[in-house]
């Protein structure tokens, strides 16, 4: 599979994404500079974490207008997989590819620690290697992870099973105390209505190798790869 990792000025998790897909999961990875107008030949696109444009004005506000984002919108409209991690999630929100917005963390602190998230929906291309309700330990590192949307949109997300990850305790209980940043409904990650675009604040690419003591994030990235392989095999048969 050919995985594209977009690099904006200020992205800093792009190399970790490349490492996991290429060296841990054995896939081809293409680094895509933000000015690149085409995503031809790619099977999935990752918008990595970091501080694109220094988080100036609002996090992700300027990156969403990078030339590559036109291609990302088209890629998403074609039903292909797009994963936004941390700043990538923020960019997807600003670009309108996912609903809602990010506010400053309730505590005003930049929070850098491991969190537990519950897999609320294991029927997506990003989570089918997980069990429903599985608890994953994944690190977060952000100052603006306080997800907000209006009540009508929230009700829609809940009804449509678009909330994919919620912050929880180690045993999977979703409580306000388990939410590190004030995020609405403990939302740590959500997808679009079609289920092909996922944004998540925790960093799965930071916990994808046994050697680092935590492979929980690998489940998400491997889900993507396995799903793509299945689709390709099915297409080859037809």
């Amino acid at each position, binding site marked *: 599979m050919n995985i594209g990792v977009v690099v904006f000025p200020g992205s800093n998790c792009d190399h970790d994404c490349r490492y996991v897909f290429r060296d841990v999961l054995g896939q081809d990875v293409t680094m895509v500079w933000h000015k690149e107008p085409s995503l031809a030949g790619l099977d999935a696109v990752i918008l990595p974490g970091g501080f694109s444009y220094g988080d100036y*004005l*609002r996090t992700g*506000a*300027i990156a969403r*207008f990078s030339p590559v984002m036109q291609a990302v919108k088209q890629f998403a409209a074609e039903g292909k997989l797009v994963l936004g991690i941390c700043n990538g999630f923020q960019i997807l929100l*600003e670009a309108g590819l996912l609903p*809602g*917005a990010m*506010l*400053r*963390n*309730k*505590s*005003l602190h930049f929070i850098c620690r491991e969190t537990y998230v519950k897999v609320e929906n294991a029927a997506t291309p990003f989570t089918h290697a997980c069990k429903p309700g599985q608890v994953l330990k994944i690190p977060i590192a952000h100052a603006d992870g*306080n997800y*907000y*949307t*209006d009540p009508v949109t929230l009700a829609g997300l809940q009804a449509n099973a678009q909330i994919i990850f919620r912050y929880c305790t180690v045993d999977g209980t979703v409580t306000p105390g388990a939410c590190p940043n*004030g995020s609405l409904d403990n939302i740590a990650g959500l997808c679009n209505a079609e289920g092909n675009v996922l944004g998540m604040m925790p960093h799965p690419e930071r916990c994808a190798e046994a050697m680092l003591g935590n492979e929980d994030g690998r489940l998400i990235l491997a889900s993507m790869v396995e799903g793509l392989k299945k689709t390709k095999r099915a297409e080859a048969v037809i």
Partner: protein
Amino acid sequence: MKAKIHVTLKPGILDPQGKAIEHALDSLKFKHAANVRVGKYIELDLQETDATKAEAAVKAMCEKLLANTIIEEYRYELG
């Protein structure tokens, strides 16, 4: 023409910065400050001399980039 733009969080949106400043003011004994909200001030020069066109341009800038209208509102002065 100069545009002076204020971008603020919509009422009801949690503003932890505002709260932190409110507590700081309180601890400095400024007891009468309440409901502190923090926003952004942006200034820019416009080449446009026609007031109607200038206003349309500034409004479009706010809607498209300068404010995230999900969580922020804006107001501007042209002069």
